[in-house]
Protein backbone atom coordinates (compact mmCIF):
# COMPACT_ATOMS: atom_id res chain seq x y z
CA UNK A 1 0.00 0.00 0.00
CA UNK A 2 1.14 3.50 -0.72
CA UNK A 3 0.20 7.13 -0.55
CA UNK A 4 -0.90 8.99 -3.66
CA UNK A 5 -0.07 12.61 -4.32
CA UNK A 6 -1.31 14.89 -7.10
CA UNK A 7 0.53 18.13 -7.75
CA UNK A 8 -0.92 20.81 -10.01
CA UNK A 9 -2.62 18.14 -12.07
CA UNK A 10 -4.45 19.45 -15.15
CA UNK A 11 -6.16 17.81 -18.06
CA UNK A 12 -7.15 19.99 -20.97
CA UNK A 13 -8.96 18.60 -23.98
CA UNK A 14 -8.20 19.57 -27.54
CA UNK A 15 -11.13 21.96 -27.66
CA UNK A 16 -9.49 23.90 -24.81
CA UNK A 17 -11.91 22.84 -22.08
CA UNK A 18 -10.39 21.78 -18.77
CA UNK A 19 -11.60 18.50 -17.29
CA UNK A 20 -9.27 18.89 -14.32
CA UNK A 21 -7.61 22.15 -13.40
CA UNK A 22 -4.54 22.52 -11.18
CA UNK A 23 -5.57 19.82 -8.72
CA UNK A 24 -3.47 19.37 -5.59
CA UNK A 25 -4.43 16.41 -3.47
CA UNK A 26 -2.64 14.13 -1.07
CA UNK A 27 -4.10 10.77 -0.15
CA UNK A 28 -2.42 9.13 2.82
CA UNK A 29 -1.38 5.49 2.95
CA UNK A 30 -4.42 3.49 4.05
CA UNK A 31 -6.87 6.35 3.63
CA UNK A 32 -10.35 6.01 2.15
CA UNK A 33 -10.85 9.12 0.04
CA UNK A 34 -14.03 9.86 -1.89
CA UNK A 35 -13.92 12.06 -4.96
CA UNK A 36 -17.40 13.47 -5.31
CA UNK A 37 -19.16 16.02 -7.43
CA UNK A 38 -21.88 16.38 -10.03
CA UNK A 39 -21.53 14.77 -13.48
CA UNK A 40 -18.81 16.35 -15.54
CA UNK A 41 -16.91 17.81 -12.58
CA UNK A 42 -13.72 15.94 -13.50
CA UNK A 43 -13.74 13.25 -10.82
CA UNK A 44 -13.60 10.30 -13.21
CA UNK A 45 -10.92 11.98 -15.28
CA UNK A 46 -8.91 12.49 -12.10
CA UNK A 47 -9.17 8.77 -11.38
CA UNK A 48 -8.07 7.94 -14.94
CA UNK A 49 -5.10 10.26 -14.53
CA UNK A 50 -4.10 8.48 -11.33
CA UNK A 51 -4.50 5.10 -13.04
CA UNK A 52 -2.52 6.21 -16.08
CA UNK A 53 -5.40 5.63 -18.51
CA UNK A 54 -5.17 9.28 -19.54
CA UNK A 55 -2.16 11.55 -19.71
CA UNK A 56 -2.23 14.86 -17.86
CA UNK A 57 -1.62 18.12 -19.72
CA UNK A 58 0.51 19.28 -16.83
CA UNK A 59 1.26 18.38 -13.25
CA UNK A 60 2.47 15.17 -11.64
CA UNK A 61 1.13 12.01 -10.05
CA UNK A 62 3.19 10.44 -7.28
CA UNK A 63 2.60 7.01 -5.83
CA UNK A 64 4.54 6.04 -2.71
CA UNK A 65 6.71 9.12 -3.15
CA UNK A 66 7.84 8.25 -6.69
CA UNK A 67 6.81 10.25 -9.74
CA UNK A 68 4.76 7.95 -11.99
CA UNK A 69 3.32 10.61 -14.32
CA UNK A 70 4.97 9.12 -17.40
CA UNK A 71 4.50 5.46 -16.46
CA UNK A 72 1.94 3.16 -18.08
CA UNK A 73 -0.90 1.68 -15.98
CA UNK A 74 0.93 -1.67 -15.66
CA UNK A 75 3.96 -0.01 -14.12
CA UNK A 76 1.86 1.81 -11.54
CA UNK A 77 0.55 -1.36 -9.88
CA UNK A 78 -2.94 -0.10 -9.06
CA UNK A 79 -6.24 -1.96 -9.24
CA UNK A 80 -9.48 -0.48 -10.44
CA UNK A 81 -13.15 -1.42 -10.19
CA UNK A 82 -15.26 -0.04 -13.01
CA UNK A 83 -18.88 1.05 -12.95
CA UNK A 84 -19.70 -1.45 -15.70
CA UNK A 85 -17.65 -4.16 -13.88
CA UNK A 86 -15.64 -4.78 -17.09
CA UNK A 87 -15.38 -8.53 -16.50
CA UNK A 88 -13.74 -10.51 -19.26
CA UNK A 89 -16.73 -12.30 -20.82
CA UNK A 90 -14.71 -15.10 -22.44
CA UNK A 91 -13.22 -16.18 -19.10
CA UNK A 92 -15.04 -17.81 -16.19
CA UNK A 93 -14.91 -16.28 -12.73
CA UNK A 94 -11.71 -18.15 -11.87
CA UNK A 95 -10.15 -16.93 -15.10
CA UNK A 96 -11.22 -13.36 -14.36
CA UNK A 97 -9.75 -13.44 -10.86
CA UNK A 98 -6.57 -15.10 -12.09
CA UNK A 99 -6.10 -12.73 -15.04
CA UNK A 100 -3.97 -10.04 -13.36
CA UNK A 101 -1.85 -12.69 -11.65
CA UNK A 102 -1.36 -14.61 -14.88
CA UNK A 103 -0.26 -11.43 -16.64
CA UNK A 104 2.15 -10.81 -13.76
CA UNK A 105 3.59 -14.29 -14.31
CA UNK A 106 2.78 -15.88 -10.96
CA UNK A 107 3.41 -19.59 -10.52
CA UNK A 108 0.27 -21.74 -11.02
CA UNK A 109 0.28 -23.00 -7.43
CA UNK A 110 0.54 -19.54 -5.88
CA UNK A 111 -2.00 -18.21 -8.37
CA UNK A 112 -4.49 -20.90 -7.41
CA UNK A 113 -4.01 -20.24 -3.73
CA UNK A 114 -4.50 -16.48 -4.11
CA UNK A 115 -7.63 -16.89 -6.24
CA UNK A 116 -9.13 -19.32 -3.74
CA UNK A 117 -8.34 -16.99 -0.83
CA UNK A 118 -9.94 -14.02 -2.56
CA UNK A 119 -13.01 -15.99 -3.60
CA UNK A 120 -13.37 -17.16 -0.01
CA UNK A 121 -13.09 -13.59 1.32
CA UNK A 122 -15.89 -12.39 -0.97
CA UNK A 123 -18.06 -15.50 -0.70
CA UNK A 124 -17.93 -16.32 -4.40
CA UNK A 125 -16.25 -19.72 -4.20
CA UNK A 126 -19.36 -21.45 -5.57
CA UNK A 127 -19.32 -19.19 -8.63
CA UNK A 128 -15.75 -19.87 -9.77
CA UNK A 129 -16.75 -22.03 -12.74
CA UNK A 130 -19.40 -19.65 -14.07
CA UNK A 131 -19.14 -17.17 -16.91
CA UNK A 132 -19.89 -13.49 -16.22
CA UNK A 133 -23.08 -13.62 -18.28
CA UNK A 134 -24.45 -16.25 -15.87
CA UNK A 135 -24.07 -13.95 -12.86
CA UNK A 136 -26.43 -11.42 -11.33
CA UNK A 137 -25.43 -7.77 -11.01
CA UNK A 138 -24.38 -8.15 -7.39
CA UNK A 139 -22.31 -11.25 -8.15
CA UNK A 140 -20.56 -9.50 -11.05
CA UNK A 141 -19.79 -6.64 -8.71
CA UNK A 142 -18.16 -9.05 -6.27
CA UNK A 143 -16.09 -10.65 -8.99
CA UNK A 144 -14.94 -7.23 -10.19
CA UNK A 145 -13.98 -6.42 -6.61
CA UNK A 146 -12.19 -9.76 -6.30
CA UNK A 147 -10.17 -9.11 -9.43
CA UNK A 148 -8.95 -5.90 -7.82
CA UNK A 149 -8.22 -7.47 -4.42
CA UNK A 150 -6.37 -10.52 -5.74
CA UNK A 151 -3.60 -8.27 -7.03
CA UNK A 152 -2.64 -6.82 -3.64
CA UNK A 153 -1.93 -3.55 -5.42
CA UNK A 154 -0.49 -0.36 -3.99
CA UNK A 155 -3.88 1.37 -4.09
CA UNK A 156 -7.46 0.64 -5.12
CA UNK A 157 -9.39 2.88 -7.48
CA UNK A 158 -13.18 2.71 -7.68
CA UNK A 159 -15.14 4.38 -10.46
CA UNK A 160 -18.76 4.55 -9.23
CA UNK A 161 -18.72 0.81 -8.52
CA UNK A 162 -22.18 0.63 -6.99
CA UNK A 163 -24.14 2.82 -9.41
CA UNK A 164 -25.50 -0.11 -11.40
CA UNK A 165 -26.89 -1.99 -8.40
CA UNK A 166 -30.42 -1.68 -7.07
CA UNK A 167 -30.93 0.32 -3.87
CA UNK A 168 -30.91 -2.54 -1.34
CA UNK A 169 -27.88 -4.25 -2.79
CA UNK A 170 -26.08 -0.94 -3.04
CA UNK A 171 -26.54 -0.27 0.67
CA UNK A 172 -25.34 -3.80 1.47
CA UNK A 173 -22.25 -3.59 -0.75
CA UNK A 174 -21.49 -0.16 0.67
CA UNK A 175 -21.32 -1.67 4.12
CA UNK A 176 -19.16 -4.54 2.89
CA UNK A 177 -16.76 -2.16 1.17
CA UNK A 178 -16.31 -0.17 4.33
CA UNK A 179 -15.69 -3.35 6.34
CA UNK A 180 -13.26 -4.53 3.67
CA UNK A 181 -11.32 -1.30 3.96
CA UNK A 182 -11.14 -1.68 7.72
CA UNK A 183 -9.95 -5.28 7.37
CA UNK A 184 -7.41 -4.77 4.59
CA UNK A 185 -6.36 -1.25 5.46
CA UNK A 186 -5.51 -0.28 1.89
CA UNK A 187 -5.48 3.07 0.15
CA UNK A 188 -8.91 3.46 -1.45
CA UNK A 189 -9.76 6.22 -3.92
CA UNK A 190 -13.45 6.14 -4.63
CA UNK A 191 -15.31 8.19 -7.22
CA UNK A 192 -19.02 8.70 -6.75
CA UNK A 193 -21.75 11.22 -7.41
CA UNK A 194 -23.77 9.75 -4.56
CA UNK A 195 -23.40 11.92 -1.46
CA UNK A 196 -24.64 9.10 0.76
CA UNK A 197 -21.73 6.88 -0.33
CA UNK A 198 -19.31 9.73 0.22
CA UNK A 199 -20.69 10.44 3.69
CA UNK A 200 -20.75 6.85 4.90
CA UNK A 201 -17.58 5.40 3.38
CA UNK A 202 -14.83 7.93 3.41
CA UNK A 203 -12.22 9.16 5.85
CA UNK A 204 -12.07 12.34 3.81
CA UNK A 205 -14.08 13.73 0.93
CA UNK A 206 -12.72 15.76 -1.97
CA UNK A 207 -15.58 17.70 -3.48
CA UNK A 208 -14.94 18.73 -7.08
CA UNK A 209 -16.67 21.34 -9.16
CA UNK A 210 -15.83 22.15 -12.79
CA UNK A 211 -12.42 20.49 -12.57
CA UNK A 212 -11.36 22.22 -9.37
CA UNK A 213 -11.17 21.06 -5.80
CA UNK A 214 -14.05 22.83 -4.08
CA UNK A 215 -13.44 21.56 -0.57
CA UNK A 216 -11.45 18.79 1.10
CA UNK A 217 -12.06 17.31 4.51
CA UNK A 218 -14.01 14.77 6.53
CA UNK A 219 -17.57 14.43 5.28
CA UNK A 220 -18.89 15.76 8.58
CA UNK A 221 -16.88 18.97 8.18
CA UNK A 222 -18.15 19.50 4.64
CA UNK A 223 -21.65 19.05 5.93
CA UNK A 224 -21.40 21.28 8.98
CA UNK A 225 -18.91 23.84 7.73
CA UNK A 226 -19.30 24.10 3.96
CA UNK A 227 -16.95 26.65 2.49
CA UNK A 228 -19.32 27.61 -0.31
CA UNK A 229 -22.92 27.49 -1.38
CA UNK A 230 -22.00 24.74 -3.85
CA UNK A 231 -20.63 22.50 -1.10
CA UNK A 232 -23.57 23.23 1.16
CA UNK A 233 -26.02 22.33 -1.57
CA UNK A 234 -24.20 19.17 -2.63
CA UNK A 235 -24.45 17.49 0.75
CA UNK A 236 -27.68 16.82 2.54
CA UNK A 237 -30.97 15.28 1.49
CA UNK A 238 -33.36 16.92 1.07
CA UNK A 239 -31.29 19.80 -0.25
CA UNK A 240 -30.41 22.93 1.65
CA UNK A 241 -33.03 25.69 1.77
CA UNK A 242 -31.59 28.79 0.14
CA UNK A 243 -33.28 32.18 0.14
CA UNK A 244 -32.86 35.86 0.88
CA UNK A 245 -32.49 36.67 4.62
CA UNK A 246 -35.78 38.53 4.75
CA UNK A 247 -37.74 35.43 3.71
CA UNK A 248 -36.75 33.74 7.00
CA UNK A 249 -37.53 36.86 8.97
CA UNK A 250 -33.85 37.81 9.36
CA UNK A 251 -32.61 41.36 8.95
CA UNK A 252 -32.36 42.14 5.21
CA UNK A 253 -28.87 42.31 3.82
CA UNK A 254 -27.90 43.07 0.23
CA UNK A 255 -25.87 40.53 -1.71
CA UNK A 256 -26.31 37.80 0.88
CA UNK A 257 -28.11 34.47 0.64
CA UNK A 258 -28.90 32.36 3.65
CA UNK A 259 -29.00 28.58 3.78
CA UNK A 260 -30.75 26.41 6.32
CA UNK A 261 -30.77 22.62 6.38
CA UNK A 262 -34.28 21.09 6.39
CA UNK A 263 -33.58 19.20 9.64
CA UNK A 264 -32.85 22.55 11.36
CA UNK A 265 -36.22 23.92 10.37
CA UNK A 266 -39.06 22.43 12.41
CA UNK A 267 -42.82 22.59 12.31
CA UNK A 268 -44.10 24.41 15.37
CA UNK A 269 -47.61 25.83 15.73
CA UNK A 270 -46.20 28.76 17.71
CA UNK A 271 -43.28 29.30 15.33
CA UNK A 272 -42.53 32.84 14.18
CA UNK A 273 -42.67 31.98 10.46
CA UNK A 274 -46.09 31.40 8.96
CA UNK A 275 -46.86 29.62 5.73
CA UNK A 276 -49.02 27.11 3.97
CA UNK A 277 -48.14 23.46 3.43
CA UNK A 278 -47.26 22.84 -0.20
CA UNK A 279 -46.28 19.16 -0.02
CA UNK A 280 -45.82 16.45 2.62
CA UNK A 281 -43.36 13.57 2.02
CA UNK A 282 -43.55 10.95 4.79
CA UNK A 283 -40.26 9.04 5.09
CA UNK A 284 -41.08 6.72 7.99
CA UNK A 285 -39.44 8.17 11.09
CA UNK A 286 -39.55 11.69 9.67
CA UNK A 287 -41.66 13.58 7.21
CA UNK A 288 -40.37 16.33 4.95
CA UNK A 289 -42.83 19.16 4.69
CA UNK A 290 -42.46 21.74 1.95
CA UNK A 291 -43.97 25.02 3.07
CA UNK A 292 -44.84 28.00 0.93
CA UNK A 293 -43.63 31.12 2.72
CA UNK A 294 -43.90 34.63 1.42
CA UNK A 295 -42.39 34.21 -2.06
CA UNK A 296 -40.21 31.16 -1.30
CA UNK A 297 -40.67 27.45 -0.66
CA UNK A 298 -38.68 25.80 2.11
CA UNK A 299 -38.47 22.23 3.32
CA UNK A 300 -38.79 21.44 7.02
CA UNK A 301 -38.58 18.31 9.11
CA UNK A 302 -41.54 17.01 11.08
CA UNK A 303 -42.34 13.87 13.04
CA UNK A 304 -43.33 10.99 10.77
CA UNK A 305 -46.67 10.80 12.57
CA UNK A 306 -47.62 14.40 11.80
CA UNK A 307 -51.04 14.86 10.25
CA UNK A 308 -50.73 17.70 7.79
CA UNK A 309 -52.25 18.19 4.41
CA UNK A 310 -51.46 20.44 1.51
CA UNK A 311 -52.94 23.89 2.08
CA UNK A 312 -52.88 23.72 5.91
CA UNK A 313 -51.45 26.74 7.64
CA UNK A 314 -48.37 26.00 9.76
CA UNK A 315 -45.71 27.74 11.80
CA UNK A 316 -41.96 27.17 11.46
CA UNK A 317 -39.12 27.62 13.92
CA UNK A 318 -35.33 27.50 13.62
CA UNK A 319 -32.21 28.27 15.64
CA UNK A 320 -30.57 31.40 14.20
CA UNK A 321 -27.12 29.87 14.91
CA UNK A 322 -27.86 27.17 12.33
CA UNK A 323 -28.18 29.67 9.51
CA UNK A 324 -25.37 29.63 6.95
CA UNK A 325 -24.63 32.87 5.11
CA UNK A 326 -23.23 33.08 1.59
CA UNK A 327 -22.08 35.86 -0.72
CA UNK A 328 -24.69 36.04 -3.46
CA UNK A 329 -22.14 36.80 -6.16
CA UNK A 330 -19.28 34.38 -5.43
CA UNK A 331 -21.14 31.76 -3.42
CA UNK A 332 -18.43 31.94 -0.74
CA UNK A 333 -19.47 31.26 2.82
CA UNK A 334 -19.57 34.30 5.07
CA UNK A 335 -18.63 33.54 8.66
CA UNK A 336 -20.45 35.26 11.48
CA UNK A 337 -17.65 37.73 12.16
CA UNK A 338 -16.92 38.51 8.55
CA UNK A 339 -20.55 38.67 7.45
Amino acid at each position, binding site marked *: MASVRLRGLSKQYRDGAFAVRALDLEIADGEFLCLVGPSGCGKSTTLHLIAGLEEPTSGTVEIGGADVTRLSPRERDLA*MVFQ*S*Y*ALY*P*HLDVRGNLAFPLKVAGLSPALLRQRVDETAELLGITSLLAR*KPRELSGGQRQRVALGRALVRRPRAF*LFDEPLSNLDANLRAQMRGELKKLHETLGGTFIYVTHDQAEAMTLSDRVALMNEGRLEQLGPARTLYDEPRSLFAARFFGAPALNVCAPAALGLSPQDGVLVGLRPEHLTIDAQGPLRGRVYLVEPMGADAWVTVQLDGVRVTARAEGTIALRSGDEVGLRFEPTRVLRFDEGTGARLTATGG
Partner: protein
Amino acid sequence: MFPPIATVGPLFLAVRALGLRDHLAGLVVPYATFALPLSLWILTSHFKELPLELYRAAKIDGCTSFGAFRRVLLPLAAPGLVTTGLLVFISSWNEFLFALTFTSAPERRTVPVAIALFSSGHAEPWTQIAAASVVATMPLVALTLLFQRRLVAGLTSGAVKG
Protein backbone atom coordinates in the same frame (compact mmCIF):
# COMPACT_ATOMS: atom_id res chain seq x y z
CA MET B 1 -15.63 -0.16 -56.75
CA PHE B 2 -15.09 -1.02 -60.38
CA PRO B 3 -16.78 -4.07 -61.87
CA PRO B 4 -14.17 -6.85 -62.17
CA ILE B 5 -14.42 -6.79 -65.96
CA ALA B 6 -13.04 -3.23 -65.93
CA THR B 7 -10.00 -4.20 -63.88
CA VAL B 8 -9.21 -7.59 -65.36
CA GLY B 9 -7.39 -6.17 -68.41
CA PRO B 10 -4.80 -4.05 -66.60
CA LEU B 11 -4.49 -6.69 -63.87
CA PHE B 12 -3.72 -9.32 -66.50
CA LEU B 13 -0.88 -7.14 -67.78
CA ALA B 14 0.44 -6.69 -64.25
CA VAL B 15 0.22 -10.40 -63.45
CA ARG B 16 1.99 -11.29 -66.69
CA ALA B 17 4.71 -8.67 -66.09
CA LEU B 18 5.32 -10.15 -62.64
CA GLY B 19 5.56 -13.62 -64.13
CA LEU B 20 2.67 -14.88 -62.01
CA ARG B 21 0.57 -16.35 -64.81
CA ASP B 22 -0.39 -19.91 -63.97
CA HIS B 23 0.80 -19.42 -60.42
CA LEU B 24 -1.67 -19.47 -57.53
CA ALA B 25 0.12 -16.35 -56.26
CA GLY B 26 -1.29 -14.59 -59.30
CA LEU B 27 -4.76 -15.17 -57.83
CA VAL B 28 -3.90 -14.88 -54.13
CA VAL B 29 -2.59 -11.32 -54.47
CA PRO B 30 -5.61 -9.86 -56.32
CA TYR B 31 -8.09 -11.76 -54.12
CA ALA B 32 -6.45 -10.51 -50.94
CA THR B 33 -6.33 -6.97 -52.30
CA PHE B 34 -9.98 -6.91 -53.28
CA ALA B 35 -11.15 -8.59 -50.06
CA LEU B 36 -9.21 -6.22 -47.82
CA PRO B 37 -11.51 -3.17 -47.80
CA LEU B 38 -14.63 -5.16 -46.94
CA SER B 39 -12.78 -7.17 -44.28
CA LEU B 40 -11.40 -4.04 -42.65
CA TRP B 41 -14.80 -2.48 -42.66
CA ILE B 42 -16.48 -5.45 -40.99
CA LEU B 43 -13.68 -5.97 -38.49
CA THR B 44 -13.49 -2.30 -37.56
CA SER B 45 -17.15 -2.27 -36.65
CA HIS B 46 -16.70 -5.49 -34.67
CA PHE B 47 -13.80 -4.13 -32.64
CA LYS B 48 -15.60 -0.84 -32.10
CA GLU B 49 -18.47 -2.69 -30.48
CA LEU B 50 -16.20 -4.07 -27.78
CA PRO B 51 -16.51 -2.05 -24.57
CA LEU B 52 -13.63 0.37 -24.05
CA GLU B 53 -13.65 -0.45 -20.35
CA LEU B 54 -12.49 -4.01 -21.08
CA TYR B 55 -9.39 -2.62 -22.73
CA ARG B 56 -8.85 -0.25 -19.83
CA ALA B 57 -9.38 -3.05 -17.31
CA ALA B 58 -6.80 -5.19 -19.10
CA LYS B 59 -4.28 -2.34 -19.04
CA ILE B 60 -4.87 -1.77 -15.32
CA ASP B 61 -4.50 -5.52 -14.77
CA GLY B 62 -0.96 -5.26 -16.09
CA CYS B 63 -1.25 -5.80 -19.85
CA THR B 64 0.65 -3.82 -22.41
CA SER B 65 -1.46 -2.39 -25.26
CA PHE B 66 -0.65 -5.40 -27.41
CA GLY B 67 -1.18 -7.75 -24.47
CA ALA B 68 -4.66 -6.31 -23.91
CA PHE B 69 -5.36 -6.81 -27.61
CA ARG B 70 -4.14 -10.40 -27.62
CA ARG B 71 -5.57 -11.58 -24.29
CA VAL B 72 -8.89 -9.74 -24.24
CA LEU B 73 -9.92 -8.03 -27.46
CA LEU B 74 -8.89 -10.72 -29.92
CA PRO B 75 -10.78 -13.58 -28.21
CA LEU B 76 -13.86 -11.37 -28.02
CA ALA B 77 -13.63 -10.42 -31.67
CA ALA B 78 -13.54 -14.09 -32.67
CA PRO B 79 -17.08 -14.13 -34.13
CA GLY B 80 -16.18 -11.16 -36.31
CA LEU B 81 -12.94 -12.79 -37.41
CA VAL B 82 -14.74 -16.02 -38.30
CA THR B 83 -17.50 -14.21 -40.17
CA THR B 84 -15.03 -12.15 -42.16
CA GLY B 85 -12.88 -15.19 -42.89
CA LEU B 86 -15.85 -17.13 -44.19
CA LEU B 87 -17.02 -14.27 -46.41
CA VAL B 88 -13.58 -13.84 -47.91
CA PHE B 89 -13.18 -17.58 -48.37
CA ILE B 90 -16.54 -17.88 -50.14
CA SER B 91 -15.87 -14.99 -52.51
CA SER B 92 -12.40 -16.31 -53.37
CA TRP B 93 -13.57 -19.91 -53.71
CA ASN B 94 -16.34 -18.90 -56.13
CA GLU B 95 -14.44 -16.23 -58.05
CA PHE B 96 -14.53 -16.88 -61.77
CA LEU B 97 -13.28 -14.05 -63.98
CA PHE B 98 -9.75 -13.56 -62.61
CA ALA B 99 -9.27 -17.30 -62.28
CA LEU B 100 -10.25 -17.80 -65.90
CA THR B 101 -8.02 -15.01 -67.17
CA PHE B 102 -4.85 -15.54 -65.10
CA THR B 103 -4.57 -19.32 -65.43
CA SER B 104 -4.39 -21.51 -68.47
CA ALA B 105 -2.68 -24.73 -67.35
CA PRO B 106 -5.33 -27.36 -66.42
CA GLU B 107 -3.63 -28.19 -63.11
CA ARG B 108 -3.90 -24.52 -62.02
CA ARG B 109 -7.59 -24.12 -62.78
CA THR B 110 -9.87 -23.29 -59.85
CA VAL B 111 -13.14 -25.15 -59.34
CA PRO B 112 -15.57 -22.67 -60.96
CA VAL B 113 -13.34 -22.37 -64.04
CA ALA B 114 -12.97 -26.14 -64.32
CA ILE B 115 -16.73 -26.61 -64.10
CA ALA B 116 -17.30 -23.97 -66.78
CA LEU B 117 -14.86 -25.77 -69.08
CA PHE B 118 -16.84 -29.04 -68.83
CA SER B 119 -18.81 -27.82 -71.83
CA SER B 120 -17.44 -28.75 -75.19
CA GLY B 121 -18.63 -27.67 -78.62
CA HIS B 122 -20.93 -30.66 -79.02
CA ALA B 123 -22.87 -31.07 -75.79
CA GLU B 124 -23.57 -29.51 -72.41
CA PRO B 125 -22.93 -32.23 -69.76
CA TRP B 126 -25.51 -30.86 -67.34
CA THR B 127 -25.44 -33.87 -65.02
CA GLN B 128 -21.66 -33.64 -64.53
CA ILE B 129 -21.87 -29.87 -64.09
CA ALA B 130 -24.57 -30.26 -61.45
CA ALA B 131 -22.60 -32.99 -59.64
CA ALA B 132 -19.40 -30.93 -59.71
CA SER B 133 -21.27 -27.90 -58.39
CA VAL B 134 -22.56 -29.90 -55.42
CA VAL B 135 -19.06 -31.18 -54.65
CA ALA B 136 -17.65 -27.66 -54.95
CA THR B 137 -20.24 -26.29 -52.52
CA MET B 138 -19.62 -28.96 -49.88
CA PRO B 139 -16.55 -27.34 -48.30
CA LEU B 140 -18.44 -24.08 -47.89
CA VAL B 141 -21.38 -25.78 -46.20
CA ALA B 142 -19.03 -27.80 -43.99
CA LEU B 143 -17.09 -24.72 -42.93
CA THR B 144 -20.22 -22.73 -42.17
CA LEU B 145 -21.64 -25.55 -40.06
CA LEU B 146 -18.34 -25.97 -38.26
CA PHE B 147 -18.15 -22.33 -37.25
CA GLN B 148 -21.86 -21.80 -36.72
CA ARG B 149 -21.49 -21.76 -32.96
CA ARG B 150 -18.78 -19.14 -33.25
CA LEU B 151 -20.93 -16.99 -35.49
CA VAL B 152 -23.61 -16.64 -32.86
CA ALA B 153 -23.49 -13.08 -31.67
CA GLY B 154 -23.58 -12.03 -28.05
CA LEU B 155 -20.29 -13.42 -26.89
CA THR B 156 -19.63 -10.17 -25.05
CA SER B 157 -22.88 -10.29 -23.10
CA GLY B 158 -22.11 -10.25 -19.41
CA ALA B 159 -19.00 -8.12 -19.74
CA VAL B 160 -20.69 -4.89 -18.88
CA LYS B 161 -24.13 -3.98 -17.66
CA GLY B 162 -26.85 -3.68 -20.26
